């Protein structure tokens, strides 16, 4: 029986929420402002009715808010992991992308084993690793809240992290190169064990088609595509499942 307005927060709610946050998984604390009860909804949990629709929208937008549903008032506090944008390649495009991405709320990390490219002088104030992606990603694995853009043009450097990003179900995977370059890349990735469904998730040629004509404009196209992918998380997957 409800004790009416006046429930304290269940300590389990806080523990469960922090466990999700530590693991870089999204969660929403739903507080019923009528009786004060809190509960944790994890991404993918089924929530019925109007509240379920509001929860799904909150996971997409990341915006916390009050909602009215089923004749009650709820507060939805959304905890999304900080999205990571991992760029393979310390190239001209990355130099333009780094400040743009930071301003848009996607702090970026650049990985490129070629020390001539990956220099602090070329990339001041950027998280930069002049190492092989294999080594960096071992310590800091990709996940669903990571985006990966491979822009070196060099299969030796790009192919491994592309497969890692697909296997980790990154919310965005993009690869620089013409259609012809990409066709060859697809052959190599298939040989590495990547599935045709995973290949479909690669954005190639990289970036929204805005007619980008130079590295800075390509950076705008890539960032826009990353944002579009982030804000439509869960939508594309649902359409595919329903179609299947």
């Amino acid at each position, binding site marked *: 029986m409800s004790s009416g*307005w*006046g*429930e*304290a*927060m*269940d*300590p389990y709610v*806080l*523990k469960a*929420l*922090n466990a999700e*946050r*530590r*693991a*870089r998984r999204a969660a929403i604390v739903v*507080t019923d*402002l009528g009786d*004060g009860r*809190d509960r944790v909804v994890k991404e993918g949990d089924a929530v019925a009715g109007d509240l379920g629709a509001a929860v799904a929208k909150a996971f997409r937008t990341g*915006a*916390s*808010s*009050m909602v009215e549903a089923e004749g009650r008032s709820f*507060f939805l*506090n*959304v905890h999304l*992991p*900080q999205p990571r944008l991992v760029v393979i390649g310390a190239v001209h495009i990355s130099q333009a992308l780094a400040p743009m991405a930071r301003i848009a709320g996607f702090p970026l990390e650049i990985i490129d084993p070629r020390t001539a490219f990956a220099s602090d002088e070329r990339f001041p104030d950027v998280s930069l690793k002049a190492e092989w992606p294999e080594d960096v990603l071992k310590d*800091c694995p990709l996940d669903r809240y990571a985006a990966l853009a491979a822009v070196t043009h060099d299969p030796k450097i790009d192919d491994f992290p592309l497969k890692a990003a697909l296997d980790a179900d990154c919310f965005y995977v993009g690869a620089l190169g013409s259609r012809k370059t990409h066709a060859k890349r697809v052959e190599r990735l298939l040989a590495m064990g990547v599935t045709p469904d995973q290949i479909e998730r690669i954005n190639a040629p990289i970036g929204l088609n805005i007619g980008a004509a130079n590295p800075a404009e390509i950076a705008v196209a890539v960032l826009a595509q990353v944002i579009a992918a982030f804000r439509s998380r869960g939508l594309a997957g649902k359409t595919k499942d329903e179609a299947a």
Partner: protein
Amino acid sequence: MPSKFLDEARDPLIIAEGWMKDGKDVAVATVIETWGSAPRPVGSHLVIDAEGTFHGSVSGGCVEGAVISEALDVIASGKPKMLDFGVADETAWQVGLSCGGRIRVYVERLG
């Protein structure tokens, strides 16, 4: 194991969990609505223990004092409180947001 992705030493909800494990009484305050220019976004937390120690923020420092004293009541009674702050409420709270915004803060006891 501490997460490398959270700033655990400054994260209010991680701190509150630690206090709870230490057997302290804790209240959690949350910004649930804002109008006009508000210094901290909806969802921001201030956590308070029974001695008045606090971490996090619900405003730029304008109303934290009032939230903390209300939180001590919430810890004592176990009953959540809804607090409204803004320029229109100066007589009620004797504090206001200098920026001219208004905020609503929900305060609940942990456990």
